[in-house]
């Protein structure tokens, strides 16, 4: 039986010797029943603290946590029917793999026969049948993580909590386990809450991505929407690799046409599109994938600093003449050398416009839809 999760104005403070650190600050969020929700953000953004509050390992300073319509805010971890997989994997070193997977069932008083049946079923799903009688120390990191998942799997939890379960694994194992976890989610029909600092994991696995910033909600949306419609510069820069380029601009008016004027380019604005006054500083965000050499409506010059070939495409790290760092991802750039000058351009339908406070004020389509006229 899975359950939906509701966080209401959740707050967690840690007090240490007179100083108070706010780890989670006023988090309100709905996690739909049966969904795969990922908390993502840089270290210290409060994502693990939130997960630990869901598990009952931390008590919220204020606010409420509901599983369905059951208030679990003050319920101890033992009575939440959640399963958790820890970053450190946390297998019991003195128990065999079989005992490790079955420990939760044993506590609930499930008979030995049924326990073994469920353990073996889980082991089969996770391809660790051969390892059942071994001790955890004899297993590889990936196998250990599968055992930890197995322990969660057999319990048929309402909520499956995963705290950076793959942070210590190498890239190949990660991509294998990503598939494994998604399969597990489908088979279990449980609500999964996943914490990671790796945006690739967040974007590839989730129904909903929750991006946190210093304990506050930055944005909670499906991955695609997070990518296409970031609510702020912070979201735009965190999601996507390499990071979104941010070019400083100024709002300018030329007769009846308003425009954003940056270093070497000018993006016309639809009439009354921007609630900003002439002379205001704003920023244009453009993903490196949407910058192309010698193409695009709006162009500017770059000095190449580093070129990283990644197969067909290359990542070019450069700087504009006013010192703004700009990354470009495109094919056919691998012959460039540091110091070379290139012209890159973008179409304004791909641009984001951020206000002075970092909030998104306009998206590309809105720039195109308007009546603006290119002056260039």
């Amino acid at each position, binding site marked *: 039986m899975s359950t939906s999760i509701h966080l209401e104005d959740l707050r967690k403070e840690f007090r240490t010797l007179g100083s108070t650190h706010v780890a989670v600050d006023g988090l309100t969020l709905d996690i739909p029943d049966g969904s795969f929700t990922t908390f993502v953000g840089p270290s210290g953004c409060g994502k693990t603290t939130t997960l630990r509050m869901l598990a009952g390992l931390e008590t919220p300073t204020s606010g409420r946590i509901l599983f369905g319509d059951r208030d679990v805010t003050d319920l101890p971890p*033992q009575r939440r029917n959640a399963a958790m997989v*820890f970053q450190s994997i946390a297998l*019991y070193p003195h128990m065999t793999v079989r005992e490790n997977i079955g420990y939760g069932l044993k506590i609930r008083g499930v008979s030995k026969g049924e326990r073994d049946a469920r353990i073996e079923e889980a082991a089969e799903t996770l391809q660790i049948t051969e390892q059942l009688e071994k001790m955890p120390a004899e297993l590889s990191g990936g196998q250990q993580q599968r055992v930890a998942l197995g322990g969660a799997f057999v319990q048929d939890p309402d909520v499956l909590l995963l705290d950076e379960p793959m942070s210590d694994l190498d890239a190949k194992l990660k991509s294998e386990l990503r598939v494994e976890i998604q399969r597990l989610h489908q088979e279990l029909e449980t609500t999964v809450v996943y914490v990671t600092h790796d945006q690739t994991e967040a974007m590839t696995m989730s129904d909903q991505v929750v991006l946190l910033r210093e304990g506050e909600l930055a944005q909670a949306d499906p991955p695609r929407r997070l990518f296409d419609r970031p609510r702020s510069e912070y979201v735009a820069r965190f999601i996507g690799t390499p990071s979104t380029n941010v070019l400083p601009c100024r709002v300018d008016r030329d007769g009846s046409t308003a425009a954003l004027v940056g270093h070497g380019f000018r993006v016309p604005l639809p009439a009354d599109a921007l609630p900003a006054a002439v002379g205001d500083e704003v920023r244009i965000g453009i993903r490196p994938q949407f910058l192309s050499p010698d193409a695009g409506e709006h162009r500017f010059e770059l000095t190449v600093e580093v070129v990283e070939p990644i197969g067909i495409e290359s990542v070019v790290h450069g700087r504009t003449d006013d010192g703004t760092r700009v990354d470009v991802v495109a094919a056919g750039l691998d012959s460039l050398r540091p110091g070379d000058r290139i012209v890159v351009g973008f179409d304004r339908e791909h641009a984001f416009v951020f206000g002075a406070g970092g909030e998104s004020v306009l998206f590309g389509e809105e720039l195109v839809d308007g009546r603006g006229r290119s002056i260039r």
Partner: protein
Amino acid sequence: MATAPRRAPRLSYRAQKRLKRAALYLTALVVSVFVTVPVYLMVVIAIQSPAATFSGGRVNLVPAEVTLRNFRVLLETTSTVRYFANSLVVTASSTVLSTAIAVAAGYGLTRFEFRGKRLAARAVLFSYMFSPIVLAIPLYVIFFALGLLNSYFALTLALTAISAPFTIWLMWQYFQTVPIALEESAWVRGAGRWRTLRDVVLPVARPGYISAAIFAFAVAWNDFTMARVVMSRDEMYTITVGASLFLDRVTIGWGETMAVSLLIAVPPFLIALFLQQYLLQGFSVGGLE
């Protein structure tokens, strides 16, 4: 052109390695001679009759005969058995008590936040700096006031007072290496605190508390000061105090002395033999490798 002055020829890497190895073996040899020779003397003198040991006007260190005569003399003319039993009783109870205190304190110090925790931990380590005799006099006064002198109970407490600071410190260090995620994982799966303690914490901490127990055992078994102060009746003496008293008798010679020494050495030897792997594991965590 003059060439640059040659440096003194250096030993090749291989030669250096060999030299290091030779030095290592030499050190090991010297140490083992210092350790084994007294033990050997003890054993040889204990299993020969005094007549054989001193025949021909010199000390014979290669046994020509093996006899239990010295042990028989001990049994017939002294209370060795009683002393030995006393030692076993107080050592066992003090070992259990000290280890139990250490596990409880170590777990508490690493798993709970409370006011004065740092101070408590420091006080524990500080109290370890006292020599037993400093504790002995106040303890004597306390036990006298409570009417507890000449009891196993009092000696158990006194011995635990000597060993507990170190065992607590050892377990405190050990529990710091036990990831709290193991316990949290058990809680989330539905295990209560006691169940978690039994199923997860204690099994994982086993090398730690076995080391603590071995230490507490050694302190209690080898104790002289506390037994001397707390016990004043002959039938309550431990083997260390008892032996020291009868060694002064004219009828007890070298043979009997070494025989009782051998008896005293047996329990620690057995403990070390069977538990050595745990001892090393526990101490390596405590940074005492």
